[in-house]
């Protein structure tokens, strides 16, 4: 067992301060800089005539809250997947979860163009379940399919396949542009109404993750150990997948595909706070939120005055990190 390097309590104590700083920074900087007094005024004495106030309340605030939440969801699903499959490369973005959602959303936009936002969230969830289910089912049928490399390859292949199916459907029915709006990361047009809609799902997903965290720690020692300790591994896995599907599904529904958060953050968390998933899961949520929110802030500066897609910024950090992981851990079994 690795020694815990840092006390997670420190993180939780500092979290409110960090969150406040992140929100403040994210609201202040952008195409139009806004000073602190305007922000406090917008929050406490909202003035419908002031453009600054409108920007803050209807654009900047939802955006930073969305980024914090989505970062948290993605990081938690990444942590769950990595623990459950004992695979250090597992992450929702390379397991067909987001591509599955895109397929279903495409079909939905073609055949039922009048679906409500809530309906779209449901379909997005169903699609994520479909994608993840397909990848895991095929991996389970293959000998050694759960090994990091195999699973990564299968996930990539099936993800490409699902992506191509949706592209073909979109081309045929000429809805490509609508679709590409839907799934290309769109943090900048976060809809406050959507955030409210997803809260119940988020609560269920996160609660499941936290309840499961102890079992995941045991599961991460291996199926045999877990079974001999009296754990019903089948149930734990099924519930974990459910939680991953909910969390990733709503992230895709909110902001489209954002890669690497689910891969990167759990590793950093493990590095900082040790291997106990009871701590890893909540800490991943916090760190994931910060990571994505700061990437989002950075995305406004890299190519200013234009915004850079958030996926480019996360890849900027994610790819070198991924390479580092492979360099240090190789093709081996478990992190």
């Amino acid at each position, binding site marked *: 067992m690795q020694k815990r390097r840092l006390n997670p309590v420190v993180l939780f104590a500092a979290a409110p301060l960090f969150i406040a700083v992140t929100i403040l920074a994210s609201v202040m900087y952008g195409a139009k800089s806004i000073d602190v007094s305007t922000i406090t005024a917008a929050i406490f004495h909202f003035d419908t005539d002031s453009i600054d106030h409108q920007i803050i309340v209807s654009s900047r605030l939802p955006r930073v809250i969305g980024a914090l939440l989505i970062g948290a969801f993605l990081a938690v699903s990444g942590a769950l997947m990595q623990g459950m499959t004992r695979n250090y*490369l597992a992450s929702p973005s*390379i397991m067909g979860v987001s591509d599955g959602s895109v397929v279903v959303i495409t079909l939905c936009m073609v055949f039922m163009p009048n679906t409500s936002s809530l309906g779209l969230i449901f379909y997005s969830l169903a699609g994520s379940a479909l994608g993840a289910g397909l990848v895991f089912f*095929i991996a389970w*049928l*293959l*000998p050694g399919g759960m090994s*990091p*490399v*195999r699973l*990564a*390859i299968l996930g*990539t*292949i*099936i993800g*490409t*396949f699902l992506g*191509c*199916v949706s*592209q*073909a459907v979109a*081309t*045929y029915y*000429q809805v490509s542009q609508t679709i590409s709006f839907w799934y290309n990361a769109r943090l900048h047009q976060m809809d406050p109404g959507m955030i409210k809609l997803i809260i119940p799902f988020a609560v269920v997903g996160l609660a499941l993750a936290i309840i499961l965290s102890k079992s995941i720690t045991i599961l991460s020692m291996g199926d045999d150990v877990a079974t001999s300790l009296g754990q019903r591994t089948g149930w734990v896995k099924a519930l974990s997948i459910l939680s991953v599907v909910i969390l990733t599904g709503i992230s895709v529904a909110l902001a489209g595909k954002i*890669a*690497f958060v689910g891969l990167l953050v759990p590793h950093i968390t493990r590095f900082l706070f040790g291997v106990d998933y009871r701590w890893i899961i909540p800490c991943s949520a916090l760190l994931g939120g910060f990571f994505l929110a700061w990437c989002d802030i950075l995305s406004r500066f890299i*190519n200013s005055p*234009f915004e*850079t*897609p958030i*996926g*480019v910024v996360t*890849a*900027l950090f*994610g*790819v070198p990190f*991924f*390479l580092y992981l*492979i*360099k240090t851990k*190789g*093709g081996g079994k478990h992190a």
Partner: protein
Amino acid sequence: MPEPQRGRLWAVIFISSIIIAAAVYISLTNGAFDISVMDVVKTLLRLDPVHEHDLVIFDFRLPRIVIALLLGLGLGIAGAVIQGIARNPLADPGMLGINAGAGTAMVLFMLLFHGSITGTGWLSIMAMPLFGLVGGLTAVILILWFAQERGQLDSQRLILVGIAIGSGFSAITLYLSLKMNPSDFEMATVWLTGSIYNANWRYISAMIPWLVLLIPLLWAKSRVLDVMQLQEASSMGLGVDVHQERKILLLGSVGLVSACVAVSGSIGFVGLIAPHIARRLVGLHHKRVIPISGLVGMAMVVVGDLIGKTVFAPAELPVGIVISIIGVPYFIFLLLKNRM
């Protein structure tokens, strides 16, 4: 190793040639403008030149078919070689990030010389594969550098690094393509999805030198590839300098892939699936696998392009998408059947 009879090899060559010929025939005669067989033959043999027929066949259909054939050939062979090097039947040039690297370089090229790419300059067209090659090589050098440990090249790690490098390059491509002006951007996106709409003879002549140069080189190395399938120590014992040869083979296949990507954008899965089919048909010897997977690749791309053109007409699907949609289920079926 089971040695399939010579007759079988010829049968395979014969049947795949017939499939290719049939697809070529249908692509030549059918389309928005139907041309009868006689007219096609007449036009090709320059017997009775009709201007419209000349235009449709020589400027639109024929270049597209030829490009499809060349692409299939190049990608199929490169795939067979790369799977041989990686000793992994799941390896694929696309998965190794080579396509993405070449793609980034091409987008950079379009960004730097914007406007002139649609143009007529021979120089810019001949420079395209070169730029693609530089990008593909950069990807490969990065991959090799990261995948190597103490001089050893682990094939598992090769693939993982490839996936990582590939997504890195895709991010750079996205970033660069956003800096383009709208018309170039349109062109870049069409090109990136793997389409061959805008085929013309210049692209073909830019591609051919690479194919003519590299395919014989790779084929000549097929014995080395056979030996590489053994454990590394055994191959060393048989007098093969594995590291040296691996680098040469990798360079050669990267050259092929880059030339193809430069012309068509990234067409995935040909390099993954064609070698599988080839191995099932003619056994494991690379001397046979390499040409046969070239043939199978040709058939795949020509048929895929035909389907993309006709099934959704008048809308066209990029051939890359058609191939993935048909190829992936078949590939997974293969995986399950062989329990690989």
